[in-house]
């Protein structure tokens, strides 16, 4: 398949870059001149850049749809301006690739990104460092686009580090506040652990495949699969692939906040709310999911890795949902909800439903961005109200101080309601379709990666999601208000520049799922997204099929290839692709249809149950709530305190590292500080001996310092001389060690 050269692809990436640079420079120039920045200019540049990127991206996707396809229906556009790195080992070009997978991502990133830019104009109005914010935001868009458009692992990594840096900068945006700086640091540290895994994974890929190009690597997974698994690496083959994929997954865990590296995401809420919406909900945190989907042929080679991905995902979603049910900070609830939903996406990956993962990623981007922006509206409104009433005490993010706000913020409430229903999985909103697909694929008989246990937990989490989201809705917007009367009247709906993006996102969270209505429910135009993505996954499967007769035989023997038949295929490769590939309408067996339909009823039922329960407990029967809390006792405390994971990390890793660092620093510094003083005195002494004419100077020095200090200085000087000897002793010991190495090895 020839890659279509389509140069405007560079524009998608360049527009945000230009926006970032020009905003940054403008800010610098103005700062030097001592002039304030005009917010109009800054936002025009930033919005223009992101909107231009969105337009070009849309153009690109349209061009992609109309591009000539290969026999498998695979279409791709690419742009390769020049070769970036050349070495004996590897050649890495700068290569942007727009294939169906990155097309979905690019649209989400630029589309949601643009809306959040619009929202930010109002939200950040009057903040200090306005230009800085927008420069960072555009820089983030740039990095994220590099991440999703990058045609090889190294460019993905460039984007990966770039978004990490921007995330860090934006979390710490309010750096004068301590918690923001700490949160930024935490995000950074945790992500380093992930990056370590990711880099090791990339090194593995480079070593095994001799290239970092996605297409080449994934194709050779098919071509050399047998070789990879047996002769080339011997009996270690499967293990190597497992280690490789798990290393990559560690990177995904860090970026996408999965157990045990999820701790940074809730803290990252210290950043401005639009940032939380864009980076920590809609786009950056999904980079891990994107990467796993991108490398899906590799993951499919290792059943162990697939199981790990699925179980980490499902456990994360359970744990985060549990915590989310107890939090009172509106943004914290949403943050844990994000962690939980990301877990869902990994469940989809782990059970081989990569298309479903991308689908959920997309719908999640819509409704979670909407929720965050909505919460931003609430916080903004509350903040202003408190500000007007001179209340500096109350926390504008604490839901216990809210309630009944629907009357004051009707539009926000409407958007929030729709997005909540979407995330809770009520039909026919977007979340319903994507979540159900994941659950169905997890449950689906014949899917060797799925299991009943995963489905069960996922199903329970769906109920919990509905519960905590409606709890949030109830505590914030419904019931009688807990806001002080005078404050309550100061709460005002926000300007349309901020409401419009929220409402657009609300519409998207309602309608976003309709592009992928499951077949069992559908009519003519079902599963469009899957049809669009299918060739992407098909491409590498075909390559495999061609080289592996086993699959072909199985397929021919198994009669009509349907979802139900995959179970016969014991090799790890077929199943996932069968799941991804949308089978012809006739492929559904009777039984599957029934099962799938009943599962849909199950999920809707638990969603409604969670919703009703939350409404009842928080609006009608708070006393029951109290009763439950007291009954749960200890367990409730543990959950409220987020399972004490932060404390555990603090006590083990953080303190451990600190101690190690301190001890090492002691080793380094203990001698040094004394030295300097010692030498000062030594200098006085030497100058006394050697400098002829400086008697006045020396005298005054000696008198001024005084005899006692001189004595102290001498003692210190001894230490200093000793240290030089000490260095030599250490050197000699090093030499000895070297000789030992020579002799022994």
């Amino acid at each position, binding site marked *: 398949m020839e890659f279509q050269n389509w140069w405007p692809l560079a524009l998608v990436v360049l527009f945000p870059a230009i926006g970032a640079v020009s905003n940054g420079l403008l800010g610098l120039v103005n700062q030097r001149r001592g002039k304030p920045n005009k917010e109009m200019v800054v936002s025009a540049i930033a919005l223009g850049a992101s909107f231009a990127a969105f337009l070009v991206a849309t153009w690109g996707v349209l061009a992609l749809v109309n591009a000539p396809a290969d026999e498998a229906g695979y279409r791709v556009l690419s742009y390769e301006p020049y070769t970036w790195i050349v070495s004996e080992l590897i050649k890495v070009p700068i290569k942007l690739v727009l294939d169906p997978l990155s097309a979905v991502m690019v649209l989400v990133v630029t589309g949601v990104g643009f809306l959040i830019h619009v929202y930010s104009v109002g939200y950040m109005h009057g903040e200090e460092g306005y230009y800085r914010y927008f420069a960072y935001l555009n820089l983030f868009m740039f990095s994220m686009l590099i991440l999703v458009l990058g045609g090889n692992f190294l460019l993905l990594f460039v984007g990966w580090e770039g978004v990490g840096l921007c995330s860090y900068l934006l979390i710490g945006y309010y750096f004068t506040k301590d918690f923001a700086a700490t949160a930024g640091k935490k995000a950074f540290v945790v992500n380093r652990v992930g990056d370590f895994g990711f880099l*090791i994974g990339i090194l593995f890929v480079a070593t095994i495949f001799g290239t970092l190009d996605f297409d080449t690597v994934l194709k050779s997974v098919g071509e050399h699969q047998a070789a990879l698994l047996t002769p080339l690496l011997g009996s270690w083959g499967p293990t190597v692939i497992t280690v490789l994929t798990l290393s990559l997954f560690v990177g995904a865990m860090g970026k996408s906040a999965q157990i045990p590296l999820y701790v940074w995401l809730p803290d990252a809420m210290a950043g401005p709310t639009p940032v939380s919406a864009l980076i920590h909900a809609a786009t950056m945190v999904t980079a891990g999911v994107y990467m796993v989907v991108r490398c899906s042929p590799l993951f499919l080679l290792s059943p162990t890795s697939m199981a790990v991905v699925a179980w980490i995902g499902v456990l994360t979603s359970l744990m985060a949902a549990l915590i989310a049910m107890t939090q009172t900070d509106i943004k914290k609830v949403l943050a844990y909800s994000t962690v939980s939903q990301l877990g869902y996406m990994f469940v989809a990956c782990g059970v081989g439903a990569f298309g479903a993962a991308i689908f959920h990623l997309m719908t999640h981007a819509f409704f979670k961005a909407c929720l965050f922006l909505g919460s931003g509206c609430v916080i903004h409104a509350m903040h202003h109200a408190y500000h007007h009433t001179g209340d500096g005490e109350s926390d504008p993010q604490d839901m216990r101080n809210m309630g009944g706000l629907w009357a004051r913020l009707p539009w926000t409430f409407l958007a929030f309601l729709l997005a909540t229903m979407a995330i809770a999985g009520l039909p026919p909103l977007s979340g319903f379709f994507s979540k159900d697909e994941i659950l169905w694929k997890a449950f689906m008989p014949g899917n060797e990666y799925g299991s009943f246990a995963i489905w069960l937990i996922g199903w329970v989490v769906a109920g919990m999601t509905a519960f905590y989201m409606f709890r949030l809705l109830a505590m914030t917007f419904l019931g009688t208000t807990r806001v002080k009367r005078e404050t309550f009247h100061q709460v005002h709906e926000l300007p349309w520049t901020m409401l419009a993006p929220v409402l657009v996102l609300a519409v998207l969270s309602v309608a976003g799922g309709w592009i992928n209505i499951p077949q069992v429910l559908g009519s003519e135009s079902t599963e469009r997204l899957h049809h669009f993505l299918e060739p992407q996954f098909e491409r590498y499967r075909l390559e495999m099929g061609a080289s592996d007769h086993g699959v072909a035989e199985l397929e021919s023997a198994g009669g009509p290839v349907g979802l139900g038949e995959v179970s016969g295929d014991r090799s790890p490769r077929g199943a996932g692709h069968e799941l991804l590939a949308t089978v012809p309408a006739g492929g559904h067996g009777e039984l599957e249809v029934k099962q799938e339909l009943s599962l849909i009823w199950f999920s809707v039922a638990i969603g409604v149950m969670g919703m009703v329960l939350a409404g009842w407990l928080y609006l009608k029967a708070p006393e029951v709530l109290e009763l439950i809390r007291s009954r749960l006792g200890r367990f409730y405390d543990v959950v409220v305190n987020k399972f004490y994971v932060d404390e555990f990390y603090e006590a083990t890793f953080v303190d451990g590292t600190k101690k190690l660092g301190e001890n090492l620093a002691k080793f380094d510094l203990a001698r040094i500080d004394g030295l300097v003083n010692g030498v000062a005195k030594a200098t006085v002494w030497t100058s006394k001996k050697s400098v002829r004419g400086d008697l006045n100077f020396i005298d005054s020095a000696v008198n001024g310092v005084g005899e006692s200090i001189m004595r102290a200085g001498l003692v210190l000087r001894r230490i200093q001389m000793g240290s030089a000897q000490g260095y*030599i002793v250490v050197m000699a010991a*090093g030499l000895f060690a070297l000789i030992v*190495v020579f002799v022994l090895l």
Partner: protein
Amino acid sequence: MAQNLIVVLPELVLALLSVVVLLIDIFSESRSRLRQTAGLAMMAVVLTLAVCIALWGKNLSGYNGIVRLDSMGLLLSMVCLVSAGATILLASDYLRQIGSEKTEFFLLILLSTVGMMVMVKAGELLTLFIGLETLSIPLYVLAGFRRQEPRSQEAALKYFLMGAFASGFLLYGIALTYAATGTTIFSELRHSTSTEAIAGSPILLAGLGLMLVGFAFKLALVPFHMWAPDVYEGSPTPVTAFMSTGVKVAAFGALVRLLGGGLASLQEGWGTALWMLAALSILFGNILALKQNNLKRLLAYSSIAHAGYILVGVVAYHSLPTAFGPWAVSYYLAAYVVMNLGAFGVLILVQSRPGGAEKLEDLRGLSQSHPLVALCMTFFLLSLAGMPPFWGFVAKFYVFGAAIQAGRYYLAIIGVLGSLISIFYYLRIIVEMYMSEPTEPEPKLSSSLAVRVTVGAAALLTLLGGLFSSGLADAARDAIRMLITP
């Protein structure tokens, strides 16, 4: 005859020009003698660079193989010259600030550079040693150039003591090697060590070990690093910049020639010893840097770690025909020199303001008072940390790639781990610059054009080197392809 002279032409030109500069300096009556001499020295550097460029592509051997003019030698010579030029630019203003306006500074830098250039072209052990001494003696003096500053004197003393010790090790090693093989010329060494009897002789191994210790000292590899933080901290900042770049280039150039050219057949032995030194340097250098508050000390530890990364490339000298290892080394050295000089340049700028010092806190809020300087520093630090898309990232990529190609995966993994640790302390500086309020309202930095231009050029190069690395890489690799054909 003519060939002999061509082979040493760059050194010859630089040495002669230094003498010319010296004479002009002595008889000068100019009021701004410091600036005049700096300018002359700069011209000498540029002329020598031009000579190097003119000689590019030649592959000659002079004085019976004692000196080699090949692409690696020229490339590293040019890197040394860049380092010297940048040091001169950085120093002229600095010297006035510290009130030590001695024009000898520039002469010593020039002559030290002669030593470096000899080292990277040496094809023989004695020449290597004398090159090393030519390089070191000026540095002992330069380290103590802030005479009124006790720490500078301490640095000079310590550097001298340790340097003498290391020279002793190196010389002893050379003597033993000569005793075992009867030659000091690399090509003959290579020939004679190919026989089993000599390659296995304990004398030769001892000689090799002692030479490695000498190099390890000069390169400040753990556990021979302890002098480095003290010396780097105490020396005048431009000298520290010169020491942490030029010396490393020279020593690594010589090491690659010696090990790859002369003692390639002993690869088993030095490979093992060096990978341990590399691993120790990477881990300890980075961990010890974490707690530093003095920027010069921090950069000292960082340079220890970087020496470790470069050593990974030397260790990867596994597959000689492809010469990928030494190529990665040269490439890394070039990148490292640029970004490290840039970082020190910013440090000099910061030190130039009244009361400005070298503590981490002194950078507080730099992004607000001097956004461009802060931006440049961010480039350097991110590049040193190996963050894409900066030059340092590409350089690390090559070095670790070379390690993998040589089958030393563990070194690549240690290297990755080390660079991840390093991000913390580099980021601490960035945080201090961007995320804290300045302590004083408007700290004024020196407006020296030379320093600013140097820093700006280094920042630009750090970025462009990363973005368009393959162009640079192609040139460098063609260069190294012809490397070491003794």
